[in-house]
């Protein structure tokens, strides 16, 4: 346990909360806390001087119409998993939620928090490791030469950072063109999830397009057509309670043996939740066969960045894509 003293404030109003955090560079929001409290109290990575508890804000709940599911940012993972629209229309979102955390965590963790979860990189999370570009820009990346490198990214990664975005939930969400609602000091914005995250580049410390003080208030998930089949396949050594080595969220619409619409997200491989657009392009309009799936997987994994510990991941990712698609679209795996 390593605690630095901080001030705790409970927010009663969205506007006031945003104003308070926006005005104070050392302030942070606190919701479910399932990652943040670890980073503050156990790891000593986050050291806010003021913590603004937003759990009482009216940002919790789920509503749906024919085309969109709207989820408040403070809705818990468990609540979203239990939602009938999610179970009926978005089975791969439900599957990703259930594969993503234990019941205890799902009861605490919020959807907004899940979007903003920090990487599990073992080098980022230990403050005694000096070289971490994500924690302190321009210090280097200890993970690249480190051991036990399986849980690192191979897409969107580079010499500056290979830290993985470990969310399960975000994988189907990014495939679905989910929109993030954000309240900032200057009002509300809607940001597509595909544009929400930022590749590490030269500044791995910058992870999203959010500005300090911006508050995620909810997400909007476009509902896929009724004919769409979706699935979430998560590959890991431990049968449960482990982050993905590779995961695939796929939604396919197949008509007369042809893929008419394909949505594909990848987890366990990207520095951000990975939208597999190159694969989608090959799939769309092509016959629903394993040859097509393999070609799509090859296209998406054309240029991975690997270190010795992740050298096996591109091929594992390709196979997982093929398996996930074959389970939905047939065509003999």
């Amino acid at each position, binding site marked *: 346990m390593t605690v630095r003293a901080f001030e705790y404030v409970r927010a009663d109003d969205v506007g006031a909360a945003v104003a308070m955090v926006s005005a104070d560079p050392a302030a942070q929001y606190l919701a479910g806390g399932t990652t943040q409290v670890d980073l503050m109290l156990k790891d000593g990575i986050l050291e806010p001087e003021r913590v603004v508890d937003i759990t009482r804000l009216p940002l919790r709940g789920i509503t749906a119409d024919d085309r969109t599911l709207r989820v408040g940012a403070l809705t818990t993972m468990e609540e979203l998993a239990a939602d009938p629209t999610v179970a009926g229309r978005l089975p791969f979102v439900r599957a990703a939620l259930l594969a993503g955390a234990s019941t205890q965590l799902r009861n605490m963790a919020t959807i907004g928090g899940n979007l903003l979860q920090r990487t599990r990189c073992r080098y980022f999370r230990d403050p005694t490791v000096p070289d971490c570009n994500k924690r302190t820009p321009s210090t280097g990346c200890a993970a690249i030469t480190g051991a036990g490198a399986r849980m690192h990214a191979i897409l969107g990664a580079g010499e500056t950072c290979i830290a993985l975005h470990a969310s399960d939930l975000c994988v189907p969400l990014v495939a679905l063109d989910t929109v993030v609602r954000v309240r900032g000091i200057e009002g509300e914005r809607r940001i597509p999830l595909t544009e929400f995250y930022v590749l590490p580049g030269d500044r791995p410390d910058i992870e999203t397009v959010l500005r300090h003080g911006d508050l995620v208030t909810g997400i909007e998930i476009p509902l896929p057509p009724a004919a769409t089949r979706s699935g979430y396949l998560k590959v890991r050594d431990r049968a*449960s309670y482990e982050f993905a080595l590779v995961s695939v969220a796929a939604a396919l619409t197949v008509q007369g043996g042809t893929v008419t619409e394909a949505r594909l997200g990848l987890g366990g491989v990207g520095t951000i939740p990975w939208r597999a657009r190159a694969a989608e392009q090959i799939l769309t309009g092509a016959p629903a066969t394993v040859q097509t799936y393999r070609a799509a997987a090859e296209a998406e994994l054309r240029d991975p960045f690997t270190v010795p510990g992740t050298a096996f991941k591109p091929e594992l990712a390709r196979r997982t894509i093929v398996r996930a698609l074959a389970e939905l679209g047939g065509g003999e795996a």
Partner: protein
Amino acid sequence: MTMTRPVIVGAGVDRVDGPLKVAGAAPYSSDIDLPGMAHVALVRSTIAAGRVTRLDTGAAEQLPGVLAVLTHHNAPRLATGPATNLGPTPPPPLQDDRVRHHGQYLAVVVAEKPYQASAAARAVTVEYEREEPVLRIEDPAGEVRTDPFGMDSARGDSAGALAAAEVVHEATYVTAENTNNPLGLFATVAQWSGGRLTVHDATQWTSNTCQTLAQMFGVPESAVRVHAKYVGGAFGSGLRVWPHVVLAVMAARTVGRPVKLVLSRPEMFTGVGHRPNTVQSLRLGAARDGRLVAIEHEALQTVAMDDENMEPVASASASAYACPNVTTRDRQRRLNIPCPGSMRAPGEAQANFALESALDELSYLLDMDPLDLRLRNYAEVQPQFGLPWSSKALRECYQVGAERFGWSRRDRRIGAMRDGRWLVGYGVAGVSYLWWQVHCEARATVGRDGTAYVRSAATDIGTGTYTVMRQLSAELLGLELDQVRFDLGDSDMPWSPQAGGSGLTGALGNAVHAACRELIRAFLRTVVNDSASPLRGCTIDDVTVSGGRIHHRADGKLGESFVAILARHGLDELTADGVSDPPDPQEVGLAPAGAFAAKFVEVHVDPELGLLRVPRVVSVVDGGRILNEKLARSQIIGATVGGIGQAILEETVTDPRTGRIANANLGDYLVAVNADIGEIDVTFVGEPDRLTPVGTKGVGEVGLPGTAAAIANAVHHATGKRIRSLPITIDELLD
């Protein structure tokens, strides 16, 4: 006495400490709170080798609540601890400026509150003079210790036999470093009072902790009392007196108040031992008919810089099979790593993987069923000494196991068995566990209310010692279970060895047996000239006990109760001590046997995605007399789960540049969870061991070894892939 047809012993009695534990009412050392207690936090090294050049504690000392900061500059000089049968005590902390491993304690902060101590520990700044650490087992820069245990063995001419052998298999096997990870964080509460020291600790060995602290702090053993009433698991990590225990005692003496130190999970990875990794080379020579003609087993393992760790690996192969030419060699490479230590089935867990994998490989070279190969080379007598085993039912283990598992349904062709998309493999391994027994003492009392109180300084680390010793005491004194209290976990009680090496139940059971017999003798002595007693003049061989009475063997009516004897003689109670010592094998003409086991495993492999699942493990165990079938079964189940972890999940990852453990938490260090565990079938076979009156053999560890080899063998059967390195993970199984 009554052990020929026991009534209470053997039955699946629920553990007596169960209700307390599930209600949260069992006080572990971390639950002890004393008036005026201060709290301790540790500062650990962030380099693996070098020297501390500057330690600035000024800022920390100014923080609120801070009572003291101890470093090598101001810490008291301590004597070294005693050597035990597990080797020397780890060196005392804060005695010099040298850094030997990442995570080594460099300072101790004592404060009013735990969070104040933590905050102050972070405020201590350390500067180092770095040296290049030696971190890899292959690194020639690390000193190699040859025959570190004096147990290297050679019989016959293994080199000659290998050269002449019709079939030879040779391969290298690698096992990863594992960390014990008991659920309970280790905690020490220490209090000095008028030169006397009281410690509450998570230890497997109160007697040794007492002796070690007395020696290090220069006080008589009689002035030190160590309590360990409940221990939240240990798996070997509580066998030694680790530096944090010493630091808590040092801190309490410095501030003159009781202190509490609770290790964090990351600290549990560097401060309380771990299973050392190994590189093992195996050479097997056989005749075409499957008879082994030679075994050569050489094992290299890691050890810390200034420490020793008793972990014989290769020597386990000397007694496993009937083979005339056997050579075993152990070596240790010194590295800048945290001290390794015992972890459930130390040495055997690594050795068995290599030997039983190699035997499986040989069976394919011979085109022989791997089970038949093991039976072909069955050691009817102890192969090193040529003496008959004191007990051995390994053949029955194989036979019963094969039947329960359905081994005959195994299609010998590789990859021939399927379950949908999954390839199915069957694997087998045998286990010949070592025998280990040492001196132990116990004390038994029967009082005027007719109840008994039996005790020893032993510990119950969750295995069921409280329960089985109460059962045994009740059996031996002819009392009901609820008339007996068995207590332990207090170094003021009669001396006990560690709960380790699968040896405590044997040592303590025999000491309890001796104490109970001595107590009955004491009652008989009391009435030896008592004309009012129907037991007048009886010796222990004339009598037996039941229903709270001592009575003639031949005539149950001819006797009287403990209570009647005490009352008539005006005594409140009678007490007797008992000791047990290991028998001398040569004297009795028997080779003392440990437990034996056969492991049968089914695996499912998805070759495309590299997924490995273990839906079924059948274990058949010869553990001698089983004192409590339910608790013994739990031991085998838990050890099997540990074996599955060793086989497919567990690996402590050390950063190759810095020596930092990169996965020092339970999210990144993978232990098996519920979803990884399928059906675990456990059966006990065999008879009480002939060597001791109680006849147990100890079942705490035998359930773990064999699991990994059987899994690896099953993976080969399923896929044709021979994985010689643990753990077996997805990346190794991708086609």
